[in-house]
């Protein structure tokens, strides 16, 4: 698309001003900067409604001090008007040393929400307004929590673990443990809150290791970021020669909450290296301990597959029948050239499902697509606003010509594809292919900071906008619009700002409220609210 001279000039001015520091944000994004006071450092941040007014407040997990750091929470309640938050928190809470993670949810009859604290042996509510110290902490769930080691500076944000599983309007708590998941369903009776706990147990085999038994852990994992070969030589006793006193590794598949059987209730799906497990939610009764369904996967998930950079499995209602479907993305290990296969499995009609639901007896997908190159990081999200999830996929093309171009220009070409969901079938070709240039010189420092995500519609045309951070120092919001049956990205950003290279970016989950972004760095938090 050819830019108008005016737009080009505006862009140049923007980039020039960006060279000296933070760029003046475009009017489309409203920015609030909260610097941390001296001696405090922001470690994590998220948005959640703390005071129950329906607006997202800002919660910052921080640490103060050096070697003997103390952790604390700074809560900034949202203000009406242009400036969403003021620098001084509305209240600050010290975290106990054994707290591993936090969330915010309404789990107590007190007005507003509480801070939900995850500790090694249970989940507690912290009531900020409790008059007495002894009433401040309320036990909610007593169980073994997967993450058992608190950090003296960092606090895990576990907001995804509080959700209304049974759709009764009250948030429930999901607690992953070493053997499965405890799901505490919240009820209200006579003004009091109670939790009924379902204990979902993974079978004793196959929980993410190709060998099945928990005793031996695989050495190469898909999420491992390094392969280490070490040879110890020399008789010294320096830093290089320390041995291990104790090594512990525990893991469980990430549970997915999706309606399996179309009864309107969220069920739990989890995938081991051999099977897809389904726990159906029973109305008013929670979940059984053992999975009700165990469906063998349509492919072998061995170590080679787990190390496949493209390998992903996702679930969502693709065909609109309100039942969970399945998308598998995996590298074609038999092909001479790098390429990726996308297999879509949708459910057979009700009453026609075979003994092996979803995958069928032969494991043949409903639809199979092939993408050249190295592709991965798939996501299912509604891009075109039709209410159905589309497939978003990133790819890197690495033929000789691309490499030479990259050497000359010092950019690596990545591409983002969107396959639109046409009533249960993905388009054969991407409706959107957008090039993302990744500066090669930024690869080392910016490793792990890259981002390209559809965050929801902020322009009002129903199509989700694209938040991009391929250069770790620049965060841009790009408008995506419909062009006939396809989509296109408007090159001129709706919003752009410079961010510290080491900063983390947090995006609010898609939902009823407009999307917002937090940029977290040592200096503090930058909040961006989109819209005019």
């Amino acid at each position: 698309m050819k830019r108008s001279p005016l737009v080009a000039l505006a862009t140049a001015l923007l980039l020039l001003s960006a060279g000296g520091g933070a760029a003046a944000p475009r009017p489309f994004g409203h920015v609030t900067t909260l610097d941390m006071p001296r001696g405090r450092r922001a470690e994590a941040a998220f948005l959640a409604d703390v005071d129950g007014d329906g607006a997202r407040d800002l919660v910052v997990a921080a640490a103060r001090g050096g070697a003997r750091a103390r952790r604390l929470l700074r809560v900034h309640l949202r203000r009406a008007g242009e400036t969403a938050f003021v620098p001084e928190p509305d209240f600050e809470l010290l975290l106990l040393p054994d707290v591993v993670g936090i969330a915010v949810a309404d789990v107590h009859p007190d007005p507003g929400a509480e801070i939900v604290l995850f500790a090694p042996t249970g989940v507690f509510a912290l009531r900020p307004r409790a008059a007495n110290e002894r009433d401040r902490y309320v036990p909610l769930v007593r169980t073994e929590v997967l993450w058992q080691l608190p950090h003296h500076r960092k606090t895990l944000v576990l907001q995804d673990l509080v959700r209304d599983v049974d759709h009764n309007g009250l948030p429930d708590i999901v607690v992953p443990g070493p053997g499965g998941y405890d799901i505490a369903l919240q009820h209200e009776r006579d003004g009091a809150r109670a939790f009924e706990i379902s204990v979902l147990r993974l079978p004793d085999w196959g929980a993410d290791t190709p060998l099945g038994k928990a005793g031996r852990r695989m050495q190469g994992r898909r999420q491992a970021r390094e392969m280490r070969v070490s040879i110890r030589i020399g008789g010294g006793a320096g830093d290089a020669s320390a041995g291990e006193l104790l090594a512990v590794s525990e893991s469980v598949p990430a549970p997915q909450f999706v309606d399996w059987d179309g009864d309107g209730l969220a069920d739990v799906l989890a995938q081991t290296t051999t099977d897809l497990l389904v726990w159906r939610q029973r109305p008013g009764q929670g979940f059984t301990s053992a999975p009700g369904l165990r469906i063998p996967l349509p492919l072998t998930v061995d170590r080679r597959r787990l190390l496949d950079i493209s390998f992903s499995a996702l679930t969502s209602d693709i065909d609109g029948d309100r039942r969970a479907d399945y998308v598998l993305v995996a590298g074609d290990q038999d092909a001479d050239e790098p390429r990726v296969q996308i297999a879509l499995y949708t459910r057979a009609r009700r009453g026609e499902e075979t003994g092996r639901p979803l995958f069928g007896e032969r494991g043949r997908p409903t639809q199979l697509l092939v993408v050249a190159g190295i592709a991965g990081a798939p996501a299912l999200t509604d891009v075109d606003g039709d209410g159905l999830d589309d497939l978003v996929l990133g790819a890197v093309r690495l033929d000789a010509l691309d490499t030479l171009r990259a050497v000359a220009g010092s950019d690596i070409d990545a591409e983002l594809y969107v396959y639109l969901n046409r009533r249960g079938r993905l388009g054969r070709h991407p409706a959107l292919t957008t090039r993302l240039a990744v500066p090669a010189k930024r690869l080392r420092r910016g490793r792990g900071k890259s981002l390209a995500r559809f965050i929801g519609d902020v322009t009002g045309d129903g199509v989700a906008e694209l938040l991009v951070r391929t250069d770790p120092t620049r965060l841009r919001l790009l408008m995506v619009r419909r062009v006939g049956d396809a989509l296109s990205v408007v090159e001129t950003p709706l919003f752009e700002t410079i961010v510290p290279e080491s900063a983390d970016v947090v995006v609010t989950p898609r939902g009823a409220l407009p999307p917002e972004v937090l940029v977290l760095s040592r200096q503090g938090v930058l909040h961006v609210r989109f819209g005019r």
Partner: protein
Amino acid sequence: MRRAVLAAAAALSLAAPWHPARAADRALRPAGTVQTDLTLAGRRIADLDGDGRDEVVLVARDGRVRVVRRGTDGALSAPLGELVLPDPARSLLALGHVGDDERTYLLVASPGGIAAYPSVPGAWFAVRPVHLSVRARFTLRVGEPRFAPIARDLNGDGRSDVLVPFADRCEIWLQRAGDESGPSLALGATVNIDVDRRTETGGDALSDVLESAFTIQDIRAEDVNGDGRRDLLVADADVRAFHLQRSDGSFPADPDVRVDLSLFRDTTPEAKVRLGRTLAGSDDQRYESRDLDGDGIPDHVIAHRRKVWVFLGTRDGPQFEHPVAVLKTAEDMSALLLVRVDEDALPDLVLVRLEVPSIATILKGLLTEWDVELSAVGYPGRAVGGFDTKARWKGELTVRLPALLGVIRDPDALIRRFESVSQRFGKSLIADFDGDGRDDVLLVNDGESDSGGDGAAPRVDVWLGAPGAGDADAERVVGHVLFDDANRTWTLERMLAWLGDLAQRRAARLTGGRKPAGSFSLRADATHRGIEAADLRGDGAHEIVVIYDGAEGGIVDVLAWR
């Protein structure tokens, strides 16, 4: 009922008494099997009751602790004992000694404190322990009972002391001499320790995994002041702390010597990671400790950017105020080694510099082989401590790496190649298997290297007679590779071949290059989880105990040379 059936089955198992045979007829033969119903978590070999005969200690995931031994009739017993650990998911185990008792105890650290279960006549463990401390509480979840190096005689008094690790520290509990109330533990010191952790909390995909993993580094106990008593060395971020053991066997709560490595800074500006220039590692200080002057007391080397400080240890302990030498290098260093390069016994200083490839090289490396240049400089050690200020050895190497695209497409292929080489090192046991009073050698052969990867069954091979003298001087290998080897280019193939040769040479040294005197194939229908040498009969001839995970539970196979 099931236990009775298993006991009967075990009693009927092959357990023929040992018959002396002519030397020419002797071979490695089965000498007993025990099938258990235990899902095994750990095992140990030890003479529990001091009768000169080893026992096999088996620990199950559910907390059951059982012992397998040979009776006086020579038969292998069924699993013996009734002990069930009260909190198996939070138990660290070790074998040790309590008080002046010659028996071996099973020491257990759990949320209930430290308990010591004595072995009883018949050589299994009592169900009622001696409580050494209820204050020393181990609270981390380890999933199943784990043997760990938590019991060691730190102060040389013949009694086992106990380490209790936490998320951020380690408590050292010293065993006191027993009084009228019996033996007990007293808190000797609390030291900070390094913990590496890995956490995954996010998961939008079915293929995502939530994870919690951590590794607690061991504390080091080493004599740092030459008084013959082991001292404690503690690392906590940038700080190194030394707790010197007192003559009464105690340790001070506060360290005697404490050094903050971050205070040692080279004022040369930090080398940015500019492609095509030397990678100066990270900007952290590096610390190594070794006896440099041969006085038996460890000395200390600290390096930062281009500067190296050398401090000699003293009879009063480590000191970091008066360096015996300060070296300045021309370029930033990436790594520091204290290894013996020349023929003398003094460690030498080797500095390694890694040159970061240019963008062009990295990008081209996506599709083709690519090179990383590495250079090394060596400074000989001096008898008075420190190093010569003039480098004696210099070397430049090229490490040629495969195309990244191939690695990205199939990293498992690369891992398997390294695994294949590591398996060639194999487990070795040195013990007297034939009872002639001389050490023999056992090597575990995975079968792959012999069969060319066609999946031959793993087996054990035995060589009789004195094994070759240990491992070659591995340190000198470093000097040879960095400075002497005529071939200066290392490809992946060459690295793997070199490692393979290392394994072969090691085996040749151990076996004298001879053919094995005997071999025995391991079970194909079960996963072997350990091989140990044990003198089960107490006659000086060690038997080979092979532990398997079977479909029904753990299996103990015993092989003997007879």
